[in-house]
């Protein structure tokens, strides 16, 4: 009943949603929304390099993303500039370099729309494998570094003082974000990946009272959005990535409804009757 490419799209999309859930929570907690954008912008350079050298796209993007992430850590220590200024500096300069290279290497033809917005319906079996194998590794590593990373997110000095290796956890986390962005390029594109990281986590914040709850609910919201978004895009023949994001926004708006309050006030009315 479903064609193969649709099944692949579902499998890849669900895999991606499961990873972006918890990672997105950390991005929100640490106020790193801009960081996701910066890495995504610099992905263009990775794509150009991959095409120029006839190299695997995901690995090239991952390498460039890691380089940018580590440059940021270096600049943070060496300059007195605020983080958002550094991120803007990196994002746009690397994007510019990518465009310059793209212009020079005129033999390369890149599907810019596909790169910007992704095309989940065109993922092949290798891409699906990258999502699930890479995604599993990302999740396992995140679980392993959860305690030091979370403690460092709450208070860096406290985590360091009490013997947790906070610096290492931070560096590993940066690499995890780079890998997720590399994995997701083909699926949602570089303009929309930050949305898939942040919106489900933001919606989840309204529904949860503990950090682990927030991470899990965030994954569930992402999963539901991917499934609904794929189906909607097939019915309406709309672009898939943007449709998925539009659905996450819908969930976010729903999450603003104060369900608990409504339930409590209903009970009060029943009691008074």
């Amino acid at each position, binding site marked *: 009943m479903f064609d193969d490419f649709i099944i692949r799209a579902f499998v890849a999309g669900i895999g991606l949603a499961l990873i972006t859930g918890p990672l997105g929570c950390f991005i929100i907690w640490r*106020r790193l929304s801009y960081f996701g954008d910066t890495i995504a912008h610099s992905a263009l350079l990775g794509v150009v390099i991959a095409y120029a050298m006839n190299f695997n796209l995901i690995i090239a993007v991952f390498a460039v993303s890691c380089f940018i992430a580590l440059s940021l850590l270096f600049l943070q220590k060496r300059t007195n500039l605020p983080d958002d200024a550094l991120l803007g500096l990196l994002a746009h300069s690397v994007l510019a370099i990518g465009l310059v290279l793209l212009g020079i290497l005129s033999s390369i033809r890149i599907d810019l729309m596909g790169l910007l917005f992704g095309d989940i319906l065109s993922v092949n079996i290798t891409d699906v494998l990258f999502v699930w194998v890479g995604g599993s590794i990302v999740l396992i590593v995140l679980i392993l570094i959860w305690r030091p990373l979370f*403690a460092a997110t709450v208070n860096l000095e406290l985590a*360091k003082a009490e013997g947790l290796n906070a610096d290492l956890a931070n560096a590993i986390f940066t690499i995890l974000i780079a890998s997720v962005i590399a994995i997701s390029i083909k699926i949602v594109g570089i303009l929309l990946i930050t949305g898939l990281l942040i919106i489900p986590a933001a919606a989840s*914040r309204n529904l949860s009272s503990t950090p682990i709850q927030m991470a899990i609910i965030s994954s569930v919201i992402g999963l539901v959005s991917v499934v609904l978004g794929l189906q909607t895009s097939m019915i309406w023949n709309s672009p898939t990535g943007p449709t998925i994001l539009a659905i996450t926004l819908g969930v976010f708006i729903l999450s603003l409804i104060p369900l608990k309050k409504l339930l409590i006030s209903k009970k009060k009315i029943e009691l008074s009757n």
Partner: protein
Amino acid sequence: MNNSLVELNNCGVFRNQKWLVRGVSLKVSQGEIVTLIGPNGSGKSTTAKMSLDILKPDEGTNTIKRDIRISYVPQKISIDWSLPLRSIDFVNLVTKHKTSEINDALGITGIQHLINEDVRNLSGGEFQRLLMARAIAKEPHFLVLDEPVQGVDYSGEIALYKTIQEIVKKINCGILLISHNLHVVMSQTDYVICLNGHVCCSGIPSSVIKDQEYIKLFGSNIDPTLSLYKHNHDHHHLPDGSIKEADKNK
């Protein structure tokens, strides 16, 4: 290094073209309370951070005994609004504890009823009590308290300082305390170090208050014999505002 937990040897930190603090030596051993006093900007927190190895000294050496449990109550901590965090999650931040242990620790600092409360709903004083509870729950060998009672109400402040003393006795840990309450410092601690960018004077409380450097900084009008006002209560105030009769407690 015998029974000392932490030693600073002639330590200093140099930042932005100036020394934040210089020439600090101190030693904290098991079962001992060492207190840092001094005016604002005198390098108290910087010294505490060197003793925790958060800040590497730019001169001198800091030595921390290997494999000891350390608890830290920082001076300032702000929880981001986007973090869903209950008191119990906060106590479990660095080390996971049993619920009974958490209850005990929160009970000691008088906020057991707030165990499932979101941290952002706590008042300043309640949060300070939570920070203390988290530090105690770890049963640390070395405990650093950077102005642990700021924002705590007056009776709570005395109670918390008593608690600190009890902890030292119970788990025999070493404490490095930063405090502005000179009465408490003088009456309840073993060793006082008076900082003002460098060590002005140090020693046991009774000798420090006679030191000229100390009198220059804090004045001589603080009567060392003035102890905390003690009276017999026939009841206790519980943190939730209710009153517990002391007789029934016996």
